[in-house]
């Protein structure tokens, strides 16, 4: 495919369109930096697009639907002049003063600074049969697929907030939801854990992992292994929803920026600065700990302010003045 290189050198390109990417876009757009947002073609809006009610984003006393929150953030960014491209970045070149972002369609975009807000991706169990039966009973999205499991028995794997959210959502359809968790207590927040524990359709299997997913053409059960006793048992189920966490999405920048032992992009202190000048990170891709919509948004703000500072420091004031003089002499 021939490379099409855009002539424009942007002040900043933001890769990602979750709460971090859009918040960085709102801030840099308000600072008149005309950010170019590589929003992705099918994952636009990030992980909140797959959720239902978001009850803990400040400012929404009645809660807000995830997709609606993201649509609002997008409009807010566009209102101040952010330019959105619904394309996927396949490569980046981060060295030097001008950074390049290469898209799946072959076009190349250039900028003086870049904010990496690529988020995180669902973690898989790592079982061969999990891959084979994906889309045939194995799923990562309860809001997408729960509907197909009406009056059936479902297994949810995981013990965090997203696992509880999936389990609770699935009770609308399923006759029984069994949560399989590696430990003997939940990692989820108390409010979510209490809700799940109190629900008559939800049962728990503690200290256990899913050792295999069973079924020929579609899922008909799971093989459970008790991690304390080593005992194995079969549990009949037609659906397996995997909610065991996420991994930071760093494939795009591997070998270019420093990565921490936890797999996130390494940044300096509380800033968003990576080891490369002009390259900043925001949201889940740098956060091994909190990973909330609101912390991602806060992190996007930090990156935007760091970019403003970087560009302000990088472009000496007299250059603008001489450029203005040049323009006026041309027009004279």
């Amino acid at each position: 495919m021939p490379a099409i290189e855009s002539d424009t050198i942007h002040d900043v390109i933001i890769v990602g369109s979750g709460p971090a990417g859009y918040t960085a876009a709102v801030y840099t757009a308000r600072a008149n930096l005309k950010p170019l947002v590589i929003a992705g073609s099918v994952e636009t809006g990030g992980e909140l697009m797959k959720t239902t009610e978001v009850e803990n984003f400040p400012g929404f006393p009645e809660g807000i639907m995830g997709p609606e929150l993201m649509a609002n953030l997008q409009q807010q960014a566009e209102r101040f002049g952010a330019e959105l491209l619904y394309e996927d970045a396949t490569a980046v070149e981060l060295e030097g003063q001008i950074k390049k972002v290469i898209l799946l369609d072959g076009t190349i975009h250039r900028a003086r600074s870049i904010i990496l807000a690529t988020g995180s991706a669902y973690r898989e169990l790592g079982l061969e049969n999990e891959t084979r039966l994906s889309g045939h009973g194995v799923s990562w999205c309860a809001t997408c697929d729960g509907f197909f499991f009406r009056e059936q028995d479902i297994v949810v794997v995981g013990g965090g907030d997203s696992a509880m959210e999936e389990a609770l959502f699935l009770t609308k359809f399923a006759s029984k939801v069994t949560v399989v968790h590696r430990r003997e207590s939940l990692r989820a927040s108390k409010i979510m854990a209490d809700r799940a524990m109190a629900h008559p359709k939800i049962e728990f299997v503690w200290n256990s992992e899913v050792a295999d997913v069973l079924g020929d053409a579609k899922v008909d059960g799971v093989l459970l292994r008790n991690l304390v006793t080593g005992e194995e048992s079969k549990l009949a189920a037609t659906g397996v929803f995997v909610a065991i966490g996420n991994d930071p999405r760093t494939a795009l920048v591997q070998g270019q920026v420093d990565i921490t032992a936890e797999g996130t992009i390494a940044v300096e202190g509380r800033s968003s600065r990576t080891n490369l000048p002009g390259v900043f990170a925001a949201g889940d891709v740098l956060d091994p700990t909190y990973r909330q919509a609101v912390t991602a948004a806060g992190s996007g703000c930090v990156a935007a302010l760091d970019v403003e500072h970087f560009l302000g420091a990088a472009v000496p004031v007299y250059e603008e003045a001489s450029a203005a003089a040049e323009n006026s002499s041309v027009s004279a």
Partner: protein
Amino acid sequence: MSNVNAVTDASFEADVLQSDKPVIVDFWAEWCGPCRMLSPILDQIAQEHDSVKVVKVDVDENQAIAAKYGITSIPAVYVFKDGEHVATSIGAKPKQIIEKEFAEYL
């Protein structure tokens, strides 16, 4: 405007199985976020490729067809040729990826 026609349990036989051209069928639902991301992409594919027909099936309203083809995850995109189910792509994916997956039918 979309040039992707809606197909129902009742019209599936005539619109898909008896079509002269290969048919890309988008199994979707209103409440499925990733489905909404994928539909404009399939729209574009329909516009750019005369060699195929693209249709969509709302699984909420057409549960018989969804059940018949064992749909348990959406968006699910199936290709039918001469009445046979010949290719599958599950999940919302970028246009270029879908075009690659379905290259032999486009």
